[in-house]
């Protein structure tokens, strides 16, 4: 098996182990009960860990779908002739915007959109857009001018130039941007319960409020694993889609 195959197999095993872990509610109750005997509720009881995980995955999934569609679209549009006039603005907004702390952005959206999932998705999307748009623009701009001219000289249309030339060159940067956005979204979504949604942050925040270490760990361990698995999945995907990158 190739190195990529081994990596993919390990990754699949990692995801399987992760889903087994979050489905094993009984095991959590027993282990946490043994570790923290003084705690009366060793597991979060209002939702199962399985439900919380899927809430988290749902929040992340919706956000990332929006982010990839809008971010890549915006990046492609501003590097075409039609949108070129807005390139400096987009560059400026994505650079300045990334200085905003993501957690503060999440809470800034609260007075704006109000409590609930819509506000959380809006804030997460707005922030995660920045690295994706930025890396798409940088990736597309890294195509050498003479190469583009040569392609035009060969009679390739604008769409052909984009698909055959610019996309392959930009792909590593775009995927890296999406990876950054994914890890960021998984992490920031952990705080989303504070603005009125669910997810793996729910037991953490409940545990912090009640000084209950068992609850904190019940949320913190799965969410840390989720972030690491998300990062590794994107890295494997990068290697699979862009095998020419060393």
């Amino acid at each position, binding site marked *: 098996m190739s190195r990529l195959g081994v990596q993919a197999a390990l990754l699949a095993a990692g995801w399987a182990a992760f889903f087994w872990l979050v489905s094993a509610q009984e095991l959590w109750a027993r282990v946490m009960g043994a570790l923290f005997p003084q705690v009366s509720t060793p597991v979060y009881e209002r939702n199962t860990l399985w439900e919380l995980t899927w809430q988290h995955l749902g929040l992340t999934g919706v956000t990332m779908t929006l982010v990839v569609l809008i971010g890549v679209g915006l990046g492609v549009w501003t590097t075409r002739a039609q949108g070129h006039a807005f390139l400096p603005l987009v560059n400026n907004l994505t650079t300045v915007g990334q200085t905003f702390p993501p957690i503060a952005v999440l809470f800034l959206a609260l007075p704006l959109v109000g409590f609930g999932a819509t506000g959380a998705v809006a804030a997460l999307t707005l922030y995660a857009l920045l690295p994706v748009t930025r890396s798409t623009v940088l990736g597309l701009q890294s195509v050498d001018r003479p190469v583009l001219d040569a392609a035009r000289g060969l009679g390739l249309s604008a769409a052909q130039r984009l698909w055959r030339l610019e996309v392959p060159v930009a792909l590593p940067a775009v995927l890296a941007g999406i990876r950054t956005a994914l890890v960021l979204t998984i*992490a920031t979504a952990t705080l989303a319960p504070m603005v009125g949604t669910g997810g793996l*942050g729910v037991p953490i925040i409940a545990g912090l409020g009640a000084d209950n270490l068992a609850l904190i760990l019940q949320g913190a361990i799965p969410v840390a694993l989720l972030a690491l698995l998300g990062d590794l999945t994107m890295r494997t995907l990068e290697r699979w889609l862009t095998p020419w990158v060393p």
Partner: protein
Amino acid sequence: MSRARPDPIVLLGAALGLAALALPWVNFRENRLVLGEGFPLLGLPAGWLLPALWLALGALAWSSWRSDARTAWLGAVLFAVTCAGVSGLLGGAASSLMLEATPLARVSPAGGFWLSVLALYVAGFGLSRWPGAARWSGLLGLLAFAAVPLLGWWQDLGLAQEYANIAGTFWPQLGLHLALSLTALLLALILGLPLGLAAARHERLSGTVLGVAGFLQTVPSVALFGLVLPVFSALGRDATLGSYVGWAGGALLLGTALWRLFGQKIAGLLGGLLALLGVQALLLLGGLALIGMLEGVWLGGRSFSPEALSLSAPLSAWGIRGIGAAPALLALTIYALLPVVTNTFVGLRSVPPALTDAARGLGMTGGQILRRAEWPIALPFIMEGIRAALVLTFGIATIAPLIGAGGLGFFIQRGVEGNVPDLVLLGALPIVLVALLLSGLVGWLGQRLTPPGLRPEAAAQGAELTEASPEVRSVS
């Protein structure tokens, strides 16, 4: 004079500004318990002023005579007036709505206002690319916008009323927020700079060091806070100050001895790491003492008692407990590590080998080469790492109050729990503003610390000129 094209960015700003009028401008709530009611700007006194200003700005951006010096002036002044208009109409709306309301009522900025702020940013960015006086429109606009609250015309806004309630604790919490993130940065530098140096010197180490730092960075911040909590909880309960200092000091001594004995061999490097961790543990204690002292002085909480200095006192007396500044400080340090290590590594790797060879040829020792040849070249990269680390820790310190440490997140947390959106803003807005300020400050410092011969300014200016050339052509 040739015709200049309409400026699409300023036009976009004006269009956003006009679109914002369709959204509620402010939100009015009788008290904390009822749902708010949105008021559009056009129904409020003098509300027509803003669309008029946006239309004028749009017309100016559409027109063909912008190369004129007078047009540039007109654009800058018009923009400043629009900024003052947005800011003033927010205060005005609050004042007019509060006339007949009880003191419990709150007026908060709503979607229309926030979209207008974005519109102002876009228009200001577009205008500042015009030649002549318009270059100053960004600064002018910012001053005009800020003048309104500074003159006290936002006094009827919920934001000002909530600020009046917490005025005594706002600045201390900001101070604690800064103290927490700066201490974490310092700790990260003391550990990260040598780690980056070691990674740059030893090819085999670089993968491990960068990999571990990246791995730690991937763990979500709240989860990391949660994971370090049990450690400190156990430490605070079971360890005494004497045993903690003993272990840390022992690690420092043993590590230094190993480092002296084995030098650059693997045992020596591990010794160096051990010594660094010992120093970290001791500095963590010092940082906690500092933060605890500040908290006592500023917020009048528990002050530092002399009993904590006794070697047999439990660590919890020193402030090391599951909840509090200790886990926050450690988690923030771990987060700040990656940018520092990576940038030190990249900076040192970017030194041309010919340069170090030449320095060696001149008879410089290893230390001299590092200080005089490599350090100046790596410094801009390291400063960029410090900038990133500072912005990162300052942002993540927002959630420190969740685990019982201080900081501006305290107001966010209270606002979320009590359903007071203005209080949330009062915590979140300063965090964003100070983060931008710190980023600018460290960035500027980085530029100043770069030796003149290495500054990319000349090159950047050249690039700007070429980028601006179509503009120049259309103007002339």
